[in-house]
């Protein structure tokens, strides 16, 4: 059947790169906080340096993140409306409170760690883990409740976001820890540096495991999209063969997941700091590509 469009109104994409960046930063924050809290709760002395790095990264990235939200508002001076006019069915409303409570918890936690208050740090670590997961999980809900958008409105979204958050959080902790190890610890104390290196390598393996989980979720998502309703099918086509194939298949999947996976598990590269740093860098890029793809591809199928 021949169909021609004679007239239609233009189609706009309301949410853009600021929102993607915001998702990216909260993800890093949640991931690095969880890693830090887990190492601290695990209680081993030699883990402490990693715990400290995570504890700094978490609040810092989360203090930057809301700036992107704010500049994306059409009326930034009205942001306080979020605190007084509450719509409890909206994920953004509960997100507002998470975004306020979580950095506070994070800052206190970092302070407790650096002041060597073990007990306080542990308690704040325990309260912080669910907060961190919710703070990032809610961003997944924001998308999942966008019911008109086939790529977003899946129950997988919050989990997908949390898992990719872990991936990127660990990657950044590895990067900073390796930097610290190479430039500072190694010069002061060779033995300690060796210990730290072992830890970083273990983290690399753990990152590999989360990448596998992430890939598994993405596979689920794509398979279901391909066999689901028309809109869903077309979004999957966009990702696999259309406009987003480079960003999705090329950067997110190949460079951001498969290559790093190979690097951390291949003995020759996985046992070196350099290999892990390389893998982590790729992962950081890959997760950003994932955020971009989800935000843009989700809105690229027109609704009218």
């Amino acid at each position: 059947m021949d169909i021609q469009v004679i007239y239609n109104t233009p189609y706009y994409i309301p949410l853009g790169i600021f929102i993607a960046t915001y998702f990216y930063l909260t993800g890093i924050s949640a991931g690095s906080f969880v890693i830090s809290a887990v190492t601290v709760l695990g209680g081993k002395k030699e883990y402490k340096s990693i715990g400290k790095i995570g504890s700094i990264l978490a609040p810092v990235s989360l203090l930057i993140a809301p700036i992107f939200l704010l500049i994306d508002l059409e009326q930034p001076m009205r942001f306080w409306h979020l605190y007084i006019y509450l719509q409890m069915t909206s994920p953004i409303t509960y997100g507002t409170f998470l975004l306020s409570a979580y950095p506070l918890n994070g800052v206190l936690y970092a302070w407790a760690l650096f002041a060597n208050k073990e007990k306080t740090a542990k308690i704040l670590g325990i309260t912080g883990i669910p907060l961190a997961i919710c703070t990032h999980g809610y961003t997944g809900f924001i998308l999942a409740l966008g019911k008109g958008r086939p790529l977003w409105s899946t129950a997988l979204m919050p989990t997908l976001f949390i898992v990719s958050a872990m991936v990127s959080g660990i990657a950044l902790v590895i990067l900073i820890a390796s930097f610290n190890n190479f430039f500072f610890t190694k010069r002061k104390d060779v033995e300690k540096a060796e210990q730290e290196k072992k830890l970083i390598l273990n983290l690399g393996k753990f990152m590999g495991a989360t990448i596998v989980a992430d890939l598994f979720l993405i596979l689920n998502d794509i398979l279901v999209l391909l066999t689901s309703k028309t809109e869903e099918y077309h979004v999957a086509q966009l990702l696999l063969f259309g406009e987003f194939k480079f960003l999705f298949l090329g950067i997110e999947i190949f460079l951001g997941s498969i290559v790093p996976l190979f690097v951390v598990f291949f003995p020759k590269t996985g046992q070196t700091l350099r290999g892990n740093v390389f893998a982590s860098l790729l992962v950081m890029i890959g997760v950003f590509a994932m955020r971009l793809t989800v935000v843009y591809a989700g809105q690229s199928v027109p609704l009218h």
Partner: protein
Amino acid sequence: MKNNKRYAMLIDLRKCVGCHTCSVACKAENSFPVGVFASWVKIIEKGKFPHVSRSFLPLSCNNCEKPICLTNCPVKATWKREDGIVMIDQHRCIGCKYCIASCPYDARFVNPLKKYVQKCTFCHHRVDVGLVPACVETCIGRARIFGDINDPNSLISQTISTNPVNVIKPEMGTEPRVFYVGLDLDAADPIKVWKVLED
């Protein structure tokens, strides 16, 4: 229930001639700036000569019974009147655009001059003084009917009861309050139209 009114619109596409008068009247009535649309008419052509047809599809906010935009608006700037019209409080909207992203009908836009979100509100200011929306008033084919679907004697209730009617994307569960008679499947399908433009 204090107010039993449920305002709705019915567009009889058999009478629509695709003249865009409604779009123009909407812009004039509400002073919507250039480039944004609260009401517009999509036009497609189908078939090979001599078996051809043109379909018109006037679109706007459906003032849904279960609006997802209202569920998702974090500051309750989007709210629903007792008569069912979905409103946006221009002093409260923070412009997060979440409602635009979640509306399945692409019915909302940011007013580029005033920097808050707007959409069709069935010309609520006219309805309040007993007039019908501007698009209904100016429709040259008399294709649009506006009224209270809870009143069995209203023209719109009678037309809905005696004609096969349809809404756009009923699967979204938003229960749209803009009904169509003679809706063309191809015109209502955004994907098909988009694919044509892509090729």
